[in-house]
């Protein structure tokens, strides 16, 4: 297991949907109302980058015409054919068992705790954000993705 520092929190303001490359993997990083989420940035259907999709709440209807909107259940809707993946789990709406996109745990870590993270959990590696530069922003918190 590898903890990758993808950058300072200030680089990912609320509403951010962005692709980053870490450990040769393309990740879609989302900063939504429920926090930070990371998914593999490739839709299992035909490979569209999910970071270019649309962030939506879940819409359900127990009966025709009875809409129930749950903005807190966040889904990313693929920019191509519109398949929906739950941000929190990577599971698709239409077939959560079989159709899902890899989902990675994210955390926000103050810079001072980054070395400890390396000690305790696993290796801490440079992400797209380099080791040199995070030492500059000592006051900042960092977004860490566990790959």
């Amino acid at each position, binding site marked *: 297991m590898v903890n990758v520092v993808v950058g300072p929190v200030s680089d990912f303001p609320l509403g951010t949907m962005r692709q980053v490359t870490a450990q040769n993997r393309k990740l879609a990083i989302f900063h939504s109302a429920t926090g930070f989420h990371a998914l593999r940035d490739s839709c299992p259907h035909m490979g569209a980058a999910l970071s270019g999709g*649309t962030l939506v709440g879940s819409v359900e209807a127990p009966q025709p015409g009875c809409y129930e909107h749950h903005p807190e259940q966040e889904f990313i809707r693929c920019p191509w054919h519109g398949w929906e993946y739950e941000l929190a789990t990577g599971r698709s709406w239409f077939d959560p068992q079989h159709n899902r996109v890899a989902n990675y745990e994210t955390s926000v870590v103050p810079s001072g705790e980054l070395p400890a993270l390396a000690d305790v959990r696993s290796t801490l590696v440079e992400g797209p954000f380099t080791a040199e530069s995070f030492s500059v922003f000592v006051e900042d918190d960092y977004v860490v993705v566990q790959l």
Partner: protein
Amino acid sequence: MTQVTERASAAAARPGVGLIDLDVHNALTSAAELKKYLPSRWHRAYDEGSGIGSARWMQFGAARLGVFRGDAWPASGPPGSDLDLMREQLLDRYNVSRAVLHPVLETMSVSLDGDVGLAYAAAFNDWMADRWLDRDPRFLGGITVPIEDGERAAKEIDRVAADHRFAKIVLTVATREPLGAPRYWPILEAAERNGLPITLHVGGYGSATPSGAGWASFHVEAHTNWALPYAAQVVSLVASGAFDRFPNVQIILEEGSLGWMPALMWRMDRAHQVLGDRMAELSNVPSEIVRKHFWMTTQPLDEPPVRGQLVEMFDMLDMSDRFLFSSDYPHHDFDAPDRVLPASLVGQEFRAKVMGGNAATLIARALGGSASA
């Protein structure tokens, strides 16, 4: 779900042929761009939107993603209008050797009758040559015609076909009458005269109702029904004896999906057998007429619950020389050439034919033309 990446084989579909995409949509950067190609006589009508756009498309508040891939919007202008972005997202990314372009959304209006329809069609064709075909040799063009006006359409086909970079004639599939009707014969005749296939593409606003029984409530419902007009046109063209009159005419069913075709063939054959001499004489059984005169593009590719059923369907259709890859870039139901029809599923030979080999036969004239250009 295992997805086999087929990019390498897509590029090498057939030596010297490469990947050919039969259905790509370019677009005007802005409405004003067309005026350079449109006689000033029509500028006022064009500016005021006479005939531009179709009431048919207004029936739903919105199509999914406004019909476009969410990531296909250039910095300015609509999807399909930026040549560089199209190169990046389609031609270069998938190593497409030829893409046949057509501005289908803008040209729906060209089903207008009379001189205005012809003037619009001619302007789109001149714009195509000038703004697209001249700028990248990988582009080929679809010819826009005033669909409901056979004589004028034929005239425009004759004019444009002299430029061999135009590879097909485009009609929207929902015509006012079934295509076997005599009003369309001049188009078939001009297609034959110029050695060009006719494409039927989603769209149009001529029909009574765009389903077998009335109007859909939802876009997802209407979008599913878009397979139906294709089947109806096949029936009409087969029954009308059009192919006896114009034996070299070739029709591309573009963006109609495929899954409905096997049963239609069987049904037509049975009806033909039952009705016998009570119907017009056909040169062959209907399914064989289909296999001699129709081609089918692959997008939106059917997604059976068991992937092998796709192969069963191709087997039943028994027309492997007549499937043509299409992506429909930049529309929302885009098919990615490295993901659909993997060789691991359909076999290397079949894939090679569909990704380029078959198209190379169908549009040989255009390929020769663009190679020498």
